[in-house]
């Protein structure tokens, strides 16, 4: 699924990565626990999370996660936006809740890495 499609489906506000909207993500992962992201997320994934701190960006960097979606209307800080820009990671924020967001993306064909 293209990042552009994720952004449209979730009616999300984009903070970084305007030029990367045509990149593909291969699967989705949703989690607030970064240690679990480091244990289970797959390559080239989109991560949906309600956790907002710089370690979310660093975790994404280590796991080659290309796109981050903050759910429940949470907004990244300036420091996080800068970190993400330097690492070519797309950040967006949606007002939808985690479960709803995952359901919408799954219905649209995005799968989890273990499916």
């Amino acid at each position, binding site marked *: 699924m293209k990042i552009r499609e994720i952004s449209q489906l979730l009616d999300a506000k984009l903070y970084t990565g305007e030029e990367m909207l045509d990149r593909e993500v291969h699967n989705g992962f949703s989690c*607030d*626990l*970064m*240690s*679990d992201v*480091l*244990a289970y997320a797959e*390559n080239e994934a989109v991560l949906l999370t309600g*956790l907002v*701190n*710089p*370690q*979310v960006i*660093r*975790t994404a*960097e*280590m*796991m*080659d996660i290309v796109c981050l979606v903050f759910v429940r209307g949470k907004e990244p800080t300036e*420091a996080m936006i800068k970190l993400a820009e330097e*690492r070519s990671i797309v950040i967006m924020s949606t007002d939808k809740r985690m479960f709803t967001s995952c359901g919408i993306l799954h219905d649209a064909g995005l799968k989890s890495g273990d499916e």
Partner: protein
Amino acid sequence: MEPMILEYTVSADDFSGAGEASGDVKKTLKSLGFPPEVIRRVSVAMYEAEINMVIHARGGKITVEISPDEIRVCCEDVGPGIPDIDLAMQEGWSTASDKVRGLGFGAGMGLPNIKKYTDYLDIKTVVGQGTTLTMSVAV
């Protein structure tokens, strides 16, 4: 060929800076052309160790040795040490504070993750003196 040596000091003062060293190693390995899977395994294991140093041990020192056939990472701290390594290796077992958990870590996956992503892991620890963790990933 002599291995390339990278050295980092990990500061415990700034949680948001944790991961800086691992990110730098990741960039270096990328520029040297190592396979993506090797790079990911090294950077995730080192990042977990870096986080551990910040949340448990007031920081420390990391030395990375890059050879064509192996990446070796040595993390030394003068923190509290690990009283029971078997317990610490169990998934889900953690002594982290609620504050650390609120930041998305301290779920008891750090050491298990490091073990999972590396080919070799050795932990030397003395309670009250510190911990030295040596790990390597074969290329």
